[in-house]
């Protein structure tokens, strides 16, 4: 018998999208001149017009942040800053459905993920760092660690609101003020967050949000009035930022790309490993810097694991991000889709075998079917370059030493996964992996208390946990 799930769309009536948005500077929305459209990647429907901030706008935002830092936020006792952060966290929880729907509309990710993963983590981040605000002397950075001043923060489009939380919460807890630039394809939840700041009576200028593309971001990070630059995004842009701030005295944290290895040993709990592989690469359409995009599976179980993986992939429901039963949503933009296509075509051209489950993709919007490449070698582009899409490269290994060697043979080092029933093998492997996060018998687990960051071209500095405070303190 066939059991077809009827459509179960989440209502979008809960969120009120304005036709156009200005910039959020000094506690108010101010109209700008250059407007551009942000679209729903699942339908290509225009959602709103958003201002692209120029250098002057950025300058105003930085000045507002400076004033707020000098007059209000910097001198404010930690326990009072905490009250604002707790208030913001509670408002996020109260408005979580609205934020989740908006995130799915603007980003294309399934509502199941924005509702069950992104939003709970966003609120948790604010709660967690609210707790630190009055306890900084006990964070291990000296008796009276001081904030840096104005933080320039540039975030990507894959987890728009979550990346905002990762940046804004520790910065404010430590006593900094911020100017944040969301990605040009996903500005809407950041602008709704600005409304939440107003609702929380956050003093004007503590949080400023300037929307725009690369030029806006460059103007922001190169502005002489900022003391700290925090960036999450591509390695290419990260390198440019590192060059531009060199010698300026600005403190920098970079969280860049990844090409994580997910290592499956022959004694792994297979059914759960398959879930972990799926979660590792198809979560958020693979738009995850720490995605488990290289599967390293022990040769003697490779066939068995791949059969199970294919069977599981055939169950993935690709489609309307607002349907509560959707597992894989839309690719965020036409540009990203083109990149995924280019790299996938290169994989096939280089001789790897491409496989996707039968899956009907919507006609409008940006879509890419979940895909695996088998027979991949270390030399293939699909094994080396970050695809940032629902594309998994499968490699095999014989010995644990070979697994580690292959896992580390990448310019990146953000995350890795290990699947085995043997505790000693988990420790042996984790010890040798050069990756900032190593998951054992799970993947893509995040928690505000846990530091996150990379080795090598995956960047430097840590976000989350006690470690995450360091990047925002003068230590």
């Amino acid at each position: 018998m066939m059991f077809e799930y009827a459509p179960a769309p989440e209502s979008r009536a809960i969120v009120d999208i304005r036709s156009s948005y200005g910039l959020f500077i000094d506690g108010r929305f101010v109209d700008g001149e250059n407007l551009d459209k942000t679209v729903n990647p699942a339908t290509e429907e225009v959602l709103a017009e958003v201002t692209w901030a120029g250098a002057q706008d950025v300058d105003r935002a930085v000045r507002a942040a400076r004033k707020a830092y000098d007059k209000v936020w910097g001198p404010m006792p930690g326990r009072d800053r905490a009250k604002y952060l707790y208030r913001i966290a509670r408002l996020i929880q109260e408005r979580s459905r609205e934020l989740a729907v908006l995130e799915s509309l603007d980003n294309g990710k399934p509502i199941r993920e924005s509702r069950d993963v992104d939003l709970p983590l966003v609120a948790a981040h604010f709660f967690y760092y609210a707790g630190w605000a009055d306890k900084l002397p006990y964070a291990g950075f000296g008796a009276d660690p001081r904030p840096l001043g104005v933080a320039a923060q540039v975030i990507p489009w894959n987890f728009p609101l979550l990346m905002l939380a990762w940046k804004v919460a520790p910065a404010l807890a430590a006593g900094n003020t911020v100017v944040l630039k969301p990605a040009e394809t996903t500005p809407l939840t950041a602008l709704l967050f600005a409304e939440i700041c107003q609702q929380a009576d956050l003093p004007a200028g503590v949080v400023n949000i300037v929307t725009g593309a690369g030029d806006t971001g460059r103007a922001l990070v190169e502005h002489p009035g900022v003391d700290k630059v925090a960036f999450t995004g591509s390695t290419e842009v990260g390198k440019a930022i590192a060059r531009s701030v060199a010698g300026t005295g600005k403190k920098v944290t970079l969280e860049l790309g990844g090409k994580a290895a997910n290592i499956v040993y022959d004694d792994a709990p297979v059914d759960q490993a398959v879930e972990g592989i799926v979660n590792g690469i198809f979560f958020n359409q693979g738009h995850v810097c720490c995605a488990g995009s290289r599967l390293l599976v022990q040769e003697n179980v490779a066939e068995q694991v791949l059969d199970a993986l294919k069977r599981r992939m055939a169950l993935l429901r690709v489609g309307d991000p607002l349907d509560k039963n959707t597992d894989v949503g839309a690719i965020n933009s036409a540009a990203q889709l083109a990149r995924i296509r280019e790299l996938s075509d290169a994989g096939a051209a280089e001789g790897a075998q491409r496989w996707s489950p039968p899956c009907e993709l919507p006609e409008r919007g940006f879509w890419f079917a979940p895909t695996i490449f088998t027979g991949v070698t270390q030399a293939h582009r699909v094994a080396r370059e970050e695809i940032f899409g629902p594309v998994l490269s499968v490699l095999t290994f014989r010995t644990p030493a070979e697994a580690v060697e292959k896992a580390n043979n990448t310019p990146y080092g953000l995350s890795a996964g290990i699947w085995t029933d043997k505790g000693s093998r988990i420790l042996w492997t984790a010890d040798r992996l050069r990756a900032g996060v190593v998951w054992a018998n799970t993947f893509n687990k995040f928690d505000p208390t846990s530091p996150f960051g990379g080795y090598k071209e995956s960047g430097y500095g840590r976000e989350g946990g006690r470690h995450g405070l360091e990047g925002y303190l003068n230590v």
Partner: protein
Amino acid sequence: MTATTTSARSDLSELGRSETALRTFLHGLPGVDQVGAEQRAAQLGTRSIKTTAKAQAIDLAIRMVDLTTLEGADTPGKVRALAAKALRPDPADPTCPHVGAVCVYPAMVPHVAEVLRGSAVHLASVATAFPSGQAPLDVKLADTRAAVAAGADEIDMVINRGAFLAGRYAEVYDEIVATKEACGDAHLKVILETGELATYDNVRRASWLGMLAGGDFIKTSTGKVPVAATLPVTLVMLEAVRDFRAATGRQVGVKPAGGIKNTKDAIKYLVMVNETVGGDWLSPDWFRFGASSLLNDLLMQRTKLTTGIYSGPDYFTLD
């Protein structure tokens, strides 16, 4: 996934001959990661089943109910009433399907058989010194034969958990084989009593043991211990029947029993069946719910869907 390949088909039937072979095989099955299994079960529980899909699921769930009463206080009158309800769960609506089976103690089988005779509703009897299984083997087998002779066409047996947990797999195996033989043509459901097995690894091993020994169904629980059916336990059992069919070609059914009280829960199980083993198991021949109060909730939800009106419990029969 199994540790075997399809070519091992004949080998599997030999496993029961030796304690060592059974142990090696069962302990060679891939482990179950508790956190991962529970997470997957929870994730499947977030599926949103609405409108037409919900109506389809409710009717299917009704057809899968093993309407059960297993109380010392059961009387011939009570079980006859239950059997009548099994035939026509909603007297007000002739389109409502009948349930899968009625499940009672052996002594009650003749009374139920009178009512069910000639219908498509199966008659299940627990046997083998249910629920503890603490009786000599010949008593358990006599119990089974008596139930079949009285008209039961499905037997729900309990495994010897003491022997299983002590690692005496051959003893458990032999008991199941003997019970299966005593069943004759009746279908055998093997109750693992997963609440007493404690780990998912044990659930997977016991599932394989039950199937290797010839069980037609594997069933979670007696309903008589504090922890009955759960979604993760059922997930592990579904994975076992899927892998067993891949290895041997024989399909085995699954029956979660105990603690499934409402439509929402039942639909979560159906989603799990759908996304773990697929449509082949979405039939009363291969999946059952051991339940009593579940049926009335299904009927209430069914009425709500068809009429738009949510009726109170007094509009549905008690048993």
